[in-house]
């Protein structure tokens, strides 16, 4: 009789202790999160596609998908340097001009209506890329082609194309080595051109490109290890080429779930595209990064969360008699004074676009297909004669 009572009391006490302990732990964890928040005040993105020619459509689609996600999460065009080595949207072989698709059956057009390409076609060279990173740009360069970051900028660098062990091919004629890239990042660090850097690369043997980094505050992700190839995802029969690479395809799907208020962290990004889906083994490098990846939000790099401060002091100025005093005060000002001063979340976060690729409705085959079949049937009957029809029916 006594034993069950005793046990139930013990059980209840244990539960209570557990609850208290978890509450305390979560409070400490909140404080720790506060402490480990990033010290950045602005975000930049440098997105590079290094391949040209129609059959490298997927590299342009990769870059444009990341561009799209980054813009959707808030980084403005003025803070994005987009380098595309070839123009797929207006390529003569594109059956759907002015579009670049990332999902087959043309479900998602990542080209959009407001893409701004900063370095296009033959301007995408190793030299220009390194100039953008290090800031050693000739004075005549327009502002949109510059990376004007400072020591409080978080920069996302995404590169895609054909690569090998220790190099990345640019435009089929030159290459950038991992040592040059590491030196470029070191020069950026020396001049404090970044607060934290996220480097993502989707090429064959991509992990070799981040092996040589030695500057602090860099986190790197790659789509495949040394000795492995990164594979493409799916071809589209109408367009005739592979549309995306696997790693970036799954990264895009992951990013579509993110909105500017998400608390998803980098550890989730590391899990994107496991070997079963990607065939290659994605890798990452965090030893140079000071914060723990589980405290780093995705929006620290992919989004542009602006910090707003509300001040409470004012100066007192003497009214100038020359300015006509107006007695009509704006209604909004009074409202603001009554509410407590806080920066409410003004983005309707819950309604942020969830652009899952929508399935297209079925349409009957177009005129061309009908005509082709009609021609085939006509030739068949011409060859074999109507009288043979009786063998069919």
């Amino acid at each position, binding site marked *: 009789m006594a034993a069950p009572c005793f046990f139930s009391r013990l059980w209840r006490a244990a539960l209570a202790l557990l609850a208290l302990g978890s509450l305390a732990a979560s409070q400490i964890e909140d404080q720790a999160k506060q402490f480990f928040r990033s010290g950045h005040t602005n975000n930049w993105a440098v997105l590079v596609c290094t391949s040209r020619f129609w059959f490298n459509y997927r590299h342009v689609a990769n870059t444009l998908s990341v561009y799209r996600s980054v813009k959707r999460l808030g980084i403005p065009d003025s803070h994005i340097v987009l380098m595309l080595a070839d123009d797929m949207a207006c390529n003569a072989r594109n059956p759907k001009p002015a579009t670049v698709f990332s999902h087959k059956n043309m479900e998602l057009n990542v080209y959009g209506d407001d893409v701004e390409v900063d370095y296009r076609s033959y301007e995408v060279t190793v030299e220009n890329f390194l100039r953008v990173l290090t800031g050693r740009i000739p004075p005549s360069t327009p502002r949109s082609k510059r990376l004007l970051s400072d020591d409080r900028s978080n920069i996302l660098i995404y590169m895609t194309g054909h690569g090998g062990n220790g190099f990345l091919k640019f435009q089929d004629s030159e290459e950038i080595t991992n040592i040059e890239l590491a*030196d470029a990042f070191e020069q950026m660090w020396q001049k404090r051109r970044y607060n934290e850097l996220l480097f993502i690369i989707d090429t064959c043997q991509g992990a070799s490109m981040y092996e040589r980094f030695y500057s602090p505050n860099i986190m790197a992700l790659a789509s495949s290890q040394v000795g492995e190839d990164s594979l493409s995802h799916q071809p589209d029969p109408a367009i005739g080429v592979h549309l995306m690479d696997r790693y970036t395809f799954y990264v895009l799907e992951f990013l579509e779930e993110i909105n500017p208020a998400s608390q998803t962290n980098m550890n989730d990004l590391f899990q994107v595209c496991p070997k079963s889906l990607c065939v290659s083994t994605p890798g990452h490098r965090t030893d140079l990064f000071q914060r723990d990846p589980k405290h780093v939000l995705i929006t620290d790099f992919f989004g542009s969360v602006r910090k707003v401060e509300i001040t409470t002091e004012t100066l007192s100025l003497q009214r100038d008699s020359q300015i006509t005093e107006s007695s009509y005060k704006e209604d909004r000002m009074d409202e603001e004074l009554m509410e407590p001063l806080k920066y409410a979340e003004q983005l309707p976060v819950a309604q942020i676009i969830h652009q899952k690729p929508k399935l297209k409705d079925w349409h009957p085959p177009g005129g061309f297909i009908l005509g082709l079949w009609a021609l085939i049937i006509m030739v068949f009957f011409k060859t074999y004669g109507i009288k043979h029809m009786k063998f069919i029916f």
Partner: protein
Amino acid sequence: MAAVGAAATHLDVVRGKRAALFFAAVAILLGLPLWWKTTETYRAPLPYSQISALNALQLRLMVPVTVVFTRDSIPLDDQEKLPFTVVHEREIPLKYKMKIKCRFQKAYRRALDHEEEALSSGSVHEAEAMLAELKEQAEGSLTVYVISEYSSLLPQDMMSYIGPERTAVVRGIMHREAFNIIGRRIIQIAQAMSLTEDVLAAALADHLPEDKWSSDKRRPLKSSLGYEITFSLLNPDPKSHDVHWDIEGAVQHYVWPFLNALSAAGNFSVDSQVYNIDPKAYNASELPVRVEVDMVQVMEVFLAQLRLLFGIAQPQVPPKCLLSGPKNEGLMTWELDQLLWARSVENLATATTTLTSLAQLLGKISNIVIKDDVASEVYRAVAAVQKAAEELASGHLSSAFVASQEAVTSSERAFFDPSLLHLLYFPDDQKFAIYIPLFLPMAVPILLSLVKIFLEMHKSWRKPEKID
């Protein structure tokens, strides 16, 4: 016949040997140095030792203070000791590689007649008005007037007063240790008006290994040659609000006086824009209510925020000190001085870091070409840093600030010169791939013939020994 033939071939052989030796000599003595010289990168000499000396630079910030004693402020025998100069130097404890010392050079003197007259007027504002007409004070310098202990110039409970221009008033004391006591009060006042540890720590915030998440340290704008200020009016509902704001008048009357007071710190340009967020719904009917924005209230907030953005902190006044009301421009003259001190130190720290990084970079990556104009910018930057340090030590704030700006500009120009782009990294296997097809076809015959000659010579040395 055979002997002649043999002699002929022997001659040929000798000629051949001489030719091979000649080829080898030309290749090694002429070719190798030529190839070395033509493939080396041009690097103009840089003052590496001076750049590393900059890191150990000792900055001495001198504030010249003139202390004026009126007749009843101190005991008579102390008055007879005037005029003389007292120096108070203190090192600022910051975890920074450059040592910074603050030096207050106090020049004590007796008051002149017109100053006595001014300081015996009814209120401190009248006194200031009378004193200010007479001379314009240099940037960075201060004047402190010492009045009698029982003077009615200040309210009874106040020991000191800090004015909007570079003047302050302190009560004297009739005591044996008058000079020491008054000296300490003056130092407190002078520090509040010029250099405190906080001002310098904020200036060097980026270079100190402190925690970087305090918003006070992150908020101020970095030192720069110029600033562009844009005032934007957002109207999210132009359908129902027809907003008017007299921005031009407000900028003319409130913003430009403030920016003109700050003009020593940089160039400014101001513009404004209006955002109507719902453009397609903008039609003129009677629904838009006319709204006039009260620009004075708006500018009060904006000027306070501009002060925060420029890093002009709330002054830390010593106890029992009366702080004068702010001027109409919103900026006291000695606050500008504080800003210039902070900016000069920040500029020098930035320039030094840039030059040191450049030197490290050029040392590490040996392939970078250093052109002459880059080298001259570096020399100019080093000279400007040294000049700025000298000017700071002698108390000339405005020329020190200008020199520090020049140092930053030159060092940045040198660091970001487009010609410094290093694209000359060749992995070893690529180097072999380039040189082997060029040099091997030429080198192999020469080497083989040299080896053959050497072996033959060796044999011919041996032969006489054998015979003997």
